[in-house]
């Protein structure tokens, strides 16, 4: 940190160095970097799925029904992880399924973090009536268990990609909002904010240009942690049959497809489950690394 403790002073120069310091800390944590690498691999798979997947994920062929993985007896190396009950290639569906998980996770987190950050800034900086309204709304939404709230909404709006993102984002923004509100309450008392106000900066300028850059670290940490959770919730909804609808390949519905064949075809539901576990685990480990690097109490 270049500035004196508790005095991040005029923003740009110092927060670049805080972020640079944080990222250097993060890079020293080899486990977290490896986990981030795994996340990156999944992201690449999702982005380039049509070029990477060996087969069309929707192409059915009943001659390949429940074809075992290549290394099992009767397997075929052209279909590495075997086929499902409709003869669709499990590996290709797995690669395409990563698109759903990552797209829903990213979309929900982007929407929720943007709304939550703006609401938290308004509540923490303006106080008074905006704070009362936003805080009460947070209390009420926190009263609903996550999955139940989403199910209540989806029962109303019907399943589908867009509805899932909205149903999850409606409640998700509360968490970044609470974090940002707390950070803003602390930041607004600092001298550099008072200085900006004395110079005649508008409230909007103070909130977005002075406070926001200085409280970004906890926001990023919360966003990454929550993304892991969102991916599990989406997969759970799709598993229950009220999330992403067939024939679109999503990991949750793939696990569900394999439920009836646990005895004869373990691979149909096992591989998508492993994929969810791997991605969520990697995000969790990486975000823990981020938190350790960003938490000022753990720094020098």
């Amino acid at each position, binding site marked *: 940190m270049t500035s004196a403790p508790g005095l991040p002073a005029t923003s740009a120069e110092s927060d670049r160095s805080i972020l640079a310091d944080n990222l250097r800390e993060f890079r020293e944590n080899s486990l977290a970097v490896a986990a981030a690498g795994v996340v990156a691999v999944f992201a690449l798979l999702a982005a380039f799925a049509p070029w990477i997947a060996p087969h069309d994920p929707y192409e059915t062929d009943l001659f390949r029904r429940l074809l075992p993985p290549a290394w099992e007896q009767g397997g075929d190396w052209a279909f590495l992880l075997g086929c499902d009950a409709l003869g669709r290639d499990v590996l290709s569906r797995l690669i395409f399924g990563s698109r759903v998980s990552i797209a829903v996770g990213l979309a929900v987190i982007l929407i929720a973090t943007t709304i939550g950050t703006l609401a938290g800034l308004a509540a923490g900086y303006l106080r008074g009536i905006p704070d009362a309204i936003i805080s009460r709304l947070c209390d009420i939404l926190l009263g609903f268990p996550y999955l139940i709230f989403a199910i209540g909404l989806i029962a109303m709006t019907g399943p589908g990609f867009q509805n899932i993102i909205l149903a999850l984002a409606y409640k998700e923004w509360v968490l970044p909002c609470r974090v940002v509100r707390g950070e803003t309450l602390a930041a607004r008392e600092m001298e550099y904010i008072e200085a900006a106000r004395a110079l005649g900066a508008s409230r909007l300028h103070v909130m977005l240009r002075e406070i926001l850059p200085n409280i970004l670290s906890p926001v990023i940490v919360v966003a990454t942690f929550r993304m892991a959770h969102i991916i599990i919730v989406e997969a759970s909804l799709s598993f229950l049959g009220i999330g992403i609808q067939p024939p679109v390949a999503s990991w949750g519905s793939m*696990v569900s497809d394999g439920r009836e064949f646990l005895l004869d075809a373990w691979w149909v539901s096992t591989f998508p489950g492993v994929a969810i576990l791997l991605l969520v685990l990697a995000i969790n480990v990486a975000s823990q690394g981020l938190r350790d690097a960003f938490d000022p109490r753990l720094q020098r």
Partner: protein
Amino acid sequence: MQLRTLIERILQLIPVLLGISIIVFAMITLTPGDPVEIMLGDQISTPEQEAALRRDMGLDLPVHERFFRFLSNALVGDFGNSFFHRRPVSDLILERLPATIELTLVAMLIAIGTAVPLGVVAAVKKGTLIDRIATVASIFGVSLPGFWFGLLLIMLFAVHWHILPVAGRIGYDFEVPKVTYLLLIDTILAGRLDSFLDALGHLILPAVTLGLPMGAILMRVTRTSMLEVLDQDYIAFAAAKGLGRMRILIRHALTNALIPTVTVAALETGSLLGGNMIVETIFGWPGLGRLVVEAIFSRNYPIIQTAVLLYAVTYVLLNFAADIVYTLLNPRVKL
């Protein structure tokens, strides 16, 4: 705790509960489709009959009157009739509730029973192999998708090894008189060991599926708070007095370290309640969660909405109870 702060805290619950009921009412009102049409289904009816049904259900009233009617009915436990069962929603829910309560309680016991000892050991043996294994296990537990974990357990214990049953709550040959409606207790009351073991066998896989991920979270909390407490002066003082190590760990450290664990346990019941729907679906457990999932597919809105309201109110009240327990355990905290 002072009576006044307790009353203030109870009063603070009112806007939250009111807000929750407004949101649930909005879900009811904004749900597309005419409830009367859904309820009548394929039955042939005259416009007069439809109008009478509409009047009965209060659908002809203005929105605010409908909300007050919904609220006053909800307060006395009247949530209307299920669309298809032709029975009060409250009856259907009460029928299913004991199974869910039993599953949740046992899951919670499993969570706390694994989390607290492991958390304490991990903290006491900080930095050792045991600590590292516990940490890795906990991050795995948090990342495990519950529905897949449940299927994995079924695949191993029921399908592959045939040790435990796949689904249901108790075998057909083991009916016992219902007293508490919690089968583990009822079978003991009836003095039927065989039935008790059968019910326990049915309960174990779903309870582990539900409880272990929560245990993973609680373990991390217990470990962290135990580490903080062990660092305190009064622990060093107790050791200097020559007290036994176990006594210090349990009487002096653990009682204080458990405070955050209790709070997080209450907060996590929210995810247990949500997880119930998935676990009950996988294991064919005849509880509230499965009723809700079935209701979604039959578009039986009154059941879904009542369950959402019930879950939310339970969750808020549990958090309130956790706050109170937290204050009682830790006199330094003021509500």
